[in-house]
């Protein structure tokens, strides 16, 4: 089991913490409170780092390991914040057949992070996706909403270079 602590230091504000305690208080007595609290907490912080999971576990009196079990199970939750530039790579059937696997390897290699991760400087985050509905352009990568199609591994350096 690899350690899943985020490389980005936690920068939650007191304001956010107050709001989170409000969310916890609102759901505390309801059965199955963990899911809605996690969803709202992710809306609030953008992700669910160790500090936020700790506050939720303490607040709901749920073991931390269980909170983590749920967070890591559902694709909707993320343990890392999004970078200033958000890269999404399609691993749907068409893109995969057209070599998205190699693209992903190159991206991971270049950025030094796995899917779901963020570079320590917060510049890029990388996520895998399933089909943007642009199979004609396969393989597809989207950066900050901008679509790059029919890519080859060698195109990656150039694309990354465009972003600050």
């Amino acid at each position: 089991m690899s350690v899943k602590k985020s490389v980005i230091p936690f920068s939650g504000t007191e304001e956010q913490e107050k709001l989170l305690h409000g969310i916890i208080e609102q759901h505390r007595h309801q059965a199955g409170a963990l899911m809605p609290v996690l969803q709202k907490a992710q809306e609030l912080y953008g992700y669910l780092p160790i500090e936020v999971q700790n506050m939720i576990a303490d607040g709901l009196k749920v073991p931390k390991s269980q909170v983590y079990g749920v967070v890591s199970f559902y694709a909707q939750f993320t343990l890392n914040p999004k970078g200033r530039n958000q890269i999404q790579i399609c691993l749907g059937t068409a893109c995969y057949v057209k070599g998205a696997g190699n693209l992903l390897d190159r991206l991971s290699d270049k950025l030094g992070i796995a899917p779901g991760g963020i570079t320590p400087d917060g510049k890029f985050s990388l996520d895998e996706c399933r089909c943007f509905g642009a199979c004609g352009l396969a393989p597809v990568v989207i950066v900050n909403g901008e679509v790059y199609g029919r890519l080859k591994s060698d195109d990656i350096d150039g694309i990354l270079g465009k972003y600050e």
Partner: protein
Amino acid sequence: MPKLTIDNIQIEVPEGTTILEASTQLGIDIPTLCHMKELSPEGSCRMCLVEVENARGLQTSCNTICSEGMVVRTDTEKVIDSHRFVLDMLLSNHNLDCFNCAANGQCKLQDYCVQYGVERTSFKGLKCTEPVDTSSPFFDFDHTKCILCRKCVRTCEHIQCDSVLSAADRGFGTSISTFMGVPYLESGCVSCGNCVQACPVGALTLKDSKKYRVWETKKVTTTCPHCATGCQMNLIVKKGKIVAVEGAPGPANEGQLCVKGRFGSHDFVHSPDRLKHPLIKKNGKFEQATWDEALDLIASKMTELKKKYGPNSLAGFSCSRAPNEDNYVMQKMVRTVFETNNVDNCARVCHSATVAGLAITLGSGAMTNTIKDITEEPEVMLIVGSNTTEAHPVIGSRIRRAKQNGCKLIVVDPRETTLAEEADIHLKIRPGTNVAFANGIMNIIISEGLEDKEYIAARTEGYDEIKKIVAEYTPEKVAAICRIDADALREAAIMYAKAEKAPIIYCLGVTEHSTGTEGVMSMSNIAMLVGKIGKAGCGVNPLRGQNNVQGACDMGCLPTDFPGYQKANKPEVISKFEKAWGVSLSSSKGLTSTEVFVAANEGKIKGLYIFGEDPIVTDPDTGHVNNALNNIEFLVVQELFMTETAAYADVILPGASYAQKEGTFSNTERRVQRVRKAVELEGEQRLDTDIFCDLMTRMGYPAHYDSASDIMDEVARLTPSFGGISFERLDRGESLQWPCTYSDHPGTPIMHCEVFSRGLGYFYPAVYKPAAELPDEEYPILLNTGRMLYHYNTRAMTGRSPGINIISNSSYIEINYKDAQKLGIGNHDRVKVYSRRGELETEALVGRKVNEGESFMTFHFPDGNANKLTNAALDEFARIPEYKVCAIKIEKA
């Protein structure tokens, strides 16, 4: 009661029985990987599938309930094929390095693959490549061998109740993980190892298991030598050495162990620094001696002192870690050849207040109910002064399990312990205010009209007087004394009183005070007020400290009591033992161990025989104990190790550890359980009972026993409450709790059912008195002392476990963050601590665990032993010292 057939055999089972349970009853073996009979069925491994006529597809037998007319087949080709398929799938992502696997030979996956003829997988694909987590000093977690049965997760969550593990991620990436995947050692795991024992394959394995192959070993079932829970365990022995320990099913532990039991019970037995020869001090240096030299010297010296100064100048301390049989013979030696009642054991410094207090109010100083009863029956538990998860970890788990199942917890403790954190109500009282708290609870119960008038009238006496006293203890007044919230006190009193089943569970937080005995009697006052003694799921339940501290008291290692609490001041008791032992006996009251030190300082004690105690470390006010030992003319210490106390001895005798002898321990619930010999004595070590017998013989009283069983037979003959206890019954598998008065008496799980041992229960009129030494301007902080999870008392045993020392090896003081701020002390800073009696340097742990103005230390560590600071103020009834309250000052080192 549905009737069904399984493999053509008819069976009738109770409603709600599963097919798996019914098959087990018939002796039909259904393979399982995720099933744990203690917990609700999981149904996830799909290994236990069976064919049920008219059902669609195969059914999981672990969670399919038997119904009328059901026809089940466990052995059809279809069922066998399904077993093979599951095994084939599991092997597809399993590291098949069986040759190097610690589980080789004790792996369920391997066993089933052999049984069903699955040699290799027919699937090809990805395999787990996660690295092995070797961070724990005790065990390794190899994900490449994990079959995701979740037994470890469920053991941690529902048996140990710590919930350190969960199944994380999804799909192929699913793995058993700590919170955020941190290494075990950093995860908050308490190293109980119960997950390792639960693992059916080689994913979680003991580091120790590399030392042996399972077929080279034998297992010896015995009783844990640490706390008084009385967990049963197997010592795993290879070629005369204990190589590992595993939990065994017993009434108190049901297979579970804690870190001390599993990892602190064997290294010390074979430790190279065990004493192996008698030693005699000559010119200030210990020299190896023969047994004849040593025993002759002791016999002649003790006889000489007895003649010169009288028998009451001699005293003996017996060992609450040693079996009943050793304790019986030790007190017999003191009484027959020392000719004095100056015999005591270290219950004096832990639960003597219980022995004295409950004897006064109920007639018997022991836990009234059983561990199982008080942790499975109640709706509410009132836990006072017991950090159960650390001091009695397995009982702690059972309490937390009760909480998971809906029981409410009221915890009265000055510290934020694990149980306090999980409590429904935590009353964080000021140390030393138990009597005020108890009187406050009773005030509320009476003013709410919740007292049990019928019970009070029929079964008790002294009610009018206690009623008058507690009338003055209004919730507001008590709240001010105890520094708690009056409404929380009210809520607690009402919650406890209204519950049908609610035990009081208490420990040293109640006893170790200069008013400890009154604190104990206050506990029985509360319970009698609401008629909660003599009933299932109720009672007054002291958790005794050491493995056999109950037994050492039961065996008469007390200055006022012969075995079975037969009083030394009763002429009929004296004449009974005089007749049985064939000597004349002293009927004068002996000195307690705490009084012996005072008397030694006054020159009244000249010869002292200490069996398995280390009072320099364990008794309060170390300086005072040092002086006493220096003042004694002749000191004998019978020990496993060269302890701080042994260094003062004139003669040291090497004794036997629990794993080297036969005997019995009596646990906290009065259950007498077997201790069995697993390994031989080393060097010239001798059985402790043989040493005592030889000395008795040399001092003119020929004594000999053929076996420990013979000793227990003598105990049974002379002790009514042990009358029906014998090795023969225990070895037949009977589990007996005293009183057990005749040879087919079933034992007594719950005491005082029809009538109290003393007749009527007595309400002792206890009035709150402050502790002997309170904080003042010069020493402004209150010091409370106690134990912690990883170590046991002097660390004679746990300190010799290398793994435990990696986790915890040095002293600390817990301080409130507000005090720390004022004193300029940061977390982990070195601090100097002073009391009127001594000083030491240690590490500060700053936080909210203790209240402002309070602090906490343990006495486990020689680099900062709290007993240099503690106060030897004694309780008037039990002469127990006030470990729990003294005044100190703290400054940055």
